[in-house]
């Protein structure tokens, strides 16, 4: 168990900056998710921490040790890869024992630790099989067991669930969360799937174009995003943004007003489930274009002014495309962004 500290890490690929002067702290025993679209640099950062990629500048500390120039083997970490990377020529037992054997532990210790990891991930019955005989979900468990068996100070995970189907992903997510909580391992988890990051992490670091846009708890990332990018990337449907004009210390539109110490155009962000749908005569006029019955809710897509807005309604609501409804916003559940920078005011 150890903290991870990243100080001013940069990475250039030729002329392109993949990572720009990045700082990140993961506390001992904490689970942090690196969330971002593909190409945002999240996997590069993880690989720099693992020692599989060289950094252009900056330092990586695990615990209090500067591991920046050590080979992967000496950093005291374990990793779970996107395609599992279980060794096809070794049995499940030997796969899980691989790290321990490299550490030259004695046979009894290896047996004990492998069995413990296997119990935790429920792969005990498959220990003698070869990975080719296992399903994707089982291979995934083997990869996690292999990582946990060495009792690493730090566990790195690179989109470990992205190759599983939806149902299995949901199941493995809950399982991973309870297993890692039990093991208490410091974990850095890379994903592009916001539901995974929300469900698993203690804190989420949202990355965009090589910088961390926001790092906070899932709840705050969701309800108080620090930029339009975070609001648009996290949550399904994404946050809605309306362009409004703030005047005389007040931001107002039909059926809504809040004090704001800013003059000029701003973006008002709100979640689709945080509005009240009222009669068209009250609130913002919302022209419904598409109604999608999602079972647990109705997803309405439509226009307010010229802007596309998505709103969530109760599943029993009788709404058809072509209708015009009124939206009422709650000042406690909105964010205000700068139109130029896209950052929260």
């Amino acid at each position, binding site marked *: 168990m150890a903290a991870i500290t990243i100080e001013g890490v940069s990475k250039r690929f030729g002329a392109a900056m993949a990572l720009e002067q990045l700082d990140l702290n993961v506390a001992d025993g904490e689970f942090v998710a690196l969330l971002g679209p593909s190409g945002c640099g999240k996997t590069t950062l993880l690989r720099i921490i693992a*020692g599989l990629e060289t950094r252009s500048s900056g330092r990586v500390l695990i615990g209090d040790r500067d591991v920046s120039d050590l080979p*992967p*083997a000496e950093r005291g970490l374990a*990793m779970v*890869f996107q395609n599992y*990377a279980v060794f096809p020529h070794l049995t499940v037992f030997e796969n899980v024992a691989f790290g321990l054997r490299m550490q030259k532990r004695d046979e009894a210790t290896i047996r004990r630790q492998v069995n413990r990891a296997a119990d935790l991930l429920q792969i005990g019955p498959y220990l003698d099989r070869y990975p080719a005989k296992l399903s994707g979900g089982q291979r995934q468990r083997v990869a996690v067991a292999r990582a946990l068996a060495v009792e690493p100070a730090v566990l790195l995970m690179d989109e470990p669930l992205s190759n599983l189907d939806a149902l299995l992903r949901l199941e493995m997510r809950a399982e991973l969360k309870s297993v890692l909580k039990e093991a208490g391992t410091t974990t850095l988890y890379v994903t592009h799937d916001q539901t995974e990051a929300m469900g698993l992490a203690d804190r989420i670091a949202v990355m965009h174009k090589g910088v961390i846009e926001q790092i906070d708890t899932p709840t705050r990332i969701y309800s108080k995003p620090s930029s339009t990018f975070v609001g648009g990337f996290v949550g399904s449907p994404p946050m809605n943004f309306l362009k409004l004009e703030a005047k005389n210390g007040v931001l107002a539109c039909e059926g809504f007003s809040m004090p704001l110490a800013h003059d000029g155009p701003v973006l008002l962000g709100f979640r689709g489930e945080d509005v009240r749908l009222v009669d068209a005569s009250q609130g913002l006029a919302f022209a419904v274009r598409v109604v999608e019955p999602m079972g647990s809710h109705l997803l309405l897509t439509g226009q307010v002014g010229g802007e596309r807005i998505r709103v969530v309604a109760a599943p029993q609501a009788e709404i058809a495309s072509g209708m015009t409804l009124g939206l009422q916003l709650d000042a406690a559940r909105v964010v205000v962004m700068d139109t130029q920078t896209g950052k929260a005011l």
Partner: protein
Amino acid sequence: MTMVMALLLGAPAGYALARFSFKGATAFRLMILLTRAFPLAILALPLTVLFIRAGLYDTAFGVSLVHTALALPFAAMITASLFAGIPRELEEAAWVFGCTRWQAFVKVVLPLALPGMAAAAIFAFVISWNEVFAASVLTVQQRTLTAYLLTVLSESPLHYRFAGGFILIVPSVVFIFAVRRYLFALWGVTSR
């Protein structure tokens, strides 16, 4: 015929040697392609001079050496595509879990590449087997193949020659059937 036997051991050993440390870069791959385009005749000239000086000309060892040299680019190409087929993540996983680069290669890459390598070696052997037949004729008899065959043709009845030829190709056919799965992969033809 002793020469055939010598090559049976010599040639595959030569290919195997070529395979161990290879990891392809674009420039190197281009060079390999160039050797394919290089006229054998030009190459043969200094080689022959060299061989005569070293007293290797017309010996089994000499022939196997030439064969190995000629097969090297082919072997490099094959092994390169074999190694490329082994996911990088497997090696990286080995590094993360405590291997040095060399250990990772020995413990992970090599065991995975071996079946393919064996198949490639057998295939190379099969090709070489055929070449050997021609080569032995060429080197020992100092005549052209066509000339030699024409001589034989006038001496022995046709079906004898065909029978002999058939026996020669039997091992090739057997081997090819045994390893065809690997061969298709090697040649990049998907068996959809």
